[in-house]
């Protein structure tokens, strides 16, 4: 094996190592779905409060969250069958599942037990999820999305439930649906 062949081999190995470590099939569909679902849910929530309709909001949100979790489950099962999910991809799945559990606990238990506005707790956890995703995927702009979620947390801390549902709907659209649509358009993104 001459020097040139060794160099070719080494460069091949380096490429394989880089690819196996860094390539994630980052499909943004669940992000778009969750974003639209929650933004729509917040708008309906706002209208229910505004028009004094006698509907238990807890049951409404249980239906919304169950739809979200079921569709995510179906999506991830399908994705695992379709792609060979890389190690980095698995870490991202774990991050979003654990943040989802944290948000569900904070959202339901927080509002049920105290009757206070649970949305800032949810947005603070979304900030965590986006910052970690930004670190792993090396999408620098995701760190700004994370900062955006934390700024919206601070705004919502100061507002009562009624107007903060609208802020949450707008934040969901700007900080989740739009970035996810951008990633979706990039299709299979190498990160």
């Amino acid at each position, binding site marked *: 094996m001459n020097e040139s062949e060794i160099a070719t081999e080494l460069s091949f190995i380096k490429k394989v*190592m880089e690819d196996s470590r860094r390539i994630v099939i980052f499909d943004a569909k669940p992000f778009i779905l969750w974003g639209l679902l929650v933004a729509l849910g917040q708008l309906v929530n706002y209208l229910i409060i505004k028009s004094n309709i006698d509907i238990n909001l807890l049951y409404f949100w249980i239906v919304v969250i169950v739809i979200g979790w079921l569709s995510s489950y179906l999506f991830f099962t399908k994705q695992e069958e379709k792609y060979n999910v890389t190690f980095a991809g698995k870490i991202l799945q774990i*991050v979003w*599942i654990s943040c989802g559990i944290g948000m569900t*606990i904070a959202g339901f238990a927080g509002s049920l037990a*105290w009757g206070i506005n649970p949305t800032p707790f949810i947005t*603070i956890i979304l*900030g*965590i999820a986006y*910052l970690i995703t930004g670190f792993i995927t090396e999408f620098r702009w995701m760190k700004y999305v994370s900062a955006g979620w934390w700024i919206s947390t601070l705004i919502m801390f100061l507002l009562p439930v009624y107007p903060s549902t609208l802020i949450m709907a707008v934040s969901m659209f700007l900080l989740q649906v739009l970035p996810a649509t951008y990633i979706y358009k990039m299709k299979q993104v190498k990160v």
Partner: protein
Amino acid sequence: MDQLNIQEDLAFIKKVINDTRQSFIHDGKPFIIWGIIAIIGQLATYAFILTKTTEYDWYMWGLLAFIGWFLSFWGYRKKKKNIRAATITEKAINAVWVSCGIAMMILIFIAPALGIYHEFYIDPIVCAILGIAYFTTGSITYKWMIYDAFGWWLGALIMFIWPGLYVLLFLPALLLVLQVIPGFIIYLQWKKVSGTN
């Protein structure tokens, strides 16, 4: 180089890649340091409330947070000098704890300072966030940490459903069982593996 040798070499390289990306040896020190700091803070807050001297509470938390971040940063710098480039696992774990740390700082300092939530309501959400950090860390590295995460989430549920002064004693108990003791176990394992005294 014949075909057999190439195959053997590639198998060896593959093994090395897998070992590098999946093995993660942590010294457990940050778990112990932050656990002890938070226990001291919680118990001191409890004492401040009993003695009606809560005006000192935020100064104390500011000082404790400063000590915690200073020690974490100092430890990180020290470690960085001695090790090779971070693996994807190390990067992910760092990202998880830094982001959860920032979120907890916002909750602990900003929310009560704005007069939004009482301290009793901060503890359960901090537990929910610790659950996220432990679940992610456990799924990537030490599998037993996943049970630890469920302990945090259960603690969060209990405190969410029954808020009260007791949470300032309940959280230190959780910190001891779910953070400081596991931190010591990790530390002992690390000492054994690395051969440090």
